[in-house]
């Protein structure tokens, strides 16, 4: 429906090469956050940035725009749900909010690690979704 923005082979080729790498790198940042720099926020921001780059360079038709917005909302809600769910699960099992050793794993150390991974993943999902939603609300052509 929408005409494609003026295409440029340089930006299109570079973006097509870069976007998969960026998404892989975002996953690396989320998974590696406890050992180096990075974590959920940075990983989520880079993941959303890769999708935003795709939208800027290749353009979106109406269907893709709708899908981007619903993806943003779903990711943000899923992230908050994951974060709050882990926190409340700890409370339900007798700990305080986000007290990871209370999680139902055999070893408290394992529970601690997996709890932090869950939290980081939740933060990453929420950040990616919120950034995507903000971008679509500012730059999208839908008015609702």
């Amino acid at each position, binding site marked *: 429906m929408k005409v494609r923005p003026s295409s440029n082979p340089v930006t299109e080729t570079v973006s097509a090469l870069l976007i998969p790498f960026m998404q892989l790198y975002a996953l690396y940042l989320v998974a590696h956050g406890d050992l180096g720099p990075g974590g959920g926020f940075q990983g989520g921001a880079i993941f959303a940035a890769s999708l935003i780059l795709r939208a*800027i360079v290749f353009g*979106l038709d109406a269907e893709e725009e709708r899908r981007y917005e619903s993806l943003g909302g779903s990711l943000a809600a899923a992230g908050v749900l994951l974060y709050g769910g882990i926190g409340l699960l700890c409370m339900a099992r007798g700990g305080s909010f986000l007290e990871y050793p209370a999680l139902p794993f055999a070893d408290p150390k394992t529970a601690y690690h997996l709890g932090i991974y869950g939290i980081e993943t939740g933060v990453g999902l929420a950040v990616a979704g919120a950034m995507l939603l903000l971008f679509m609300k500012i730059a999208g052509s839908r008015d609702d």
Partner: protein
Amino acid sequence: MFEAAALAVILAAALTLVRALKGPGVYDRILAVNVMGTKTVALLALIGFVYERPHFLDIAITYALINFIATIAFLRYRERGDLRI
């Protein structure tokens, strides 16, 4: 050796900042900001070697990716007058 290289990069970044402030055209400024980002990536990698903390390379990669997107977005804005996709 890495310290000297880092100092040279800082000097080059300062010169780039002069170009970004003086202009004269908007494309000079965009290019200056882009070069500044590239200098930042090189500087981060060098600082990682100086302090022997290889994790700085991760930050450098992150910065390189974000910098590229900002330039593309700004040029698209210049070309079309708005950011509507």
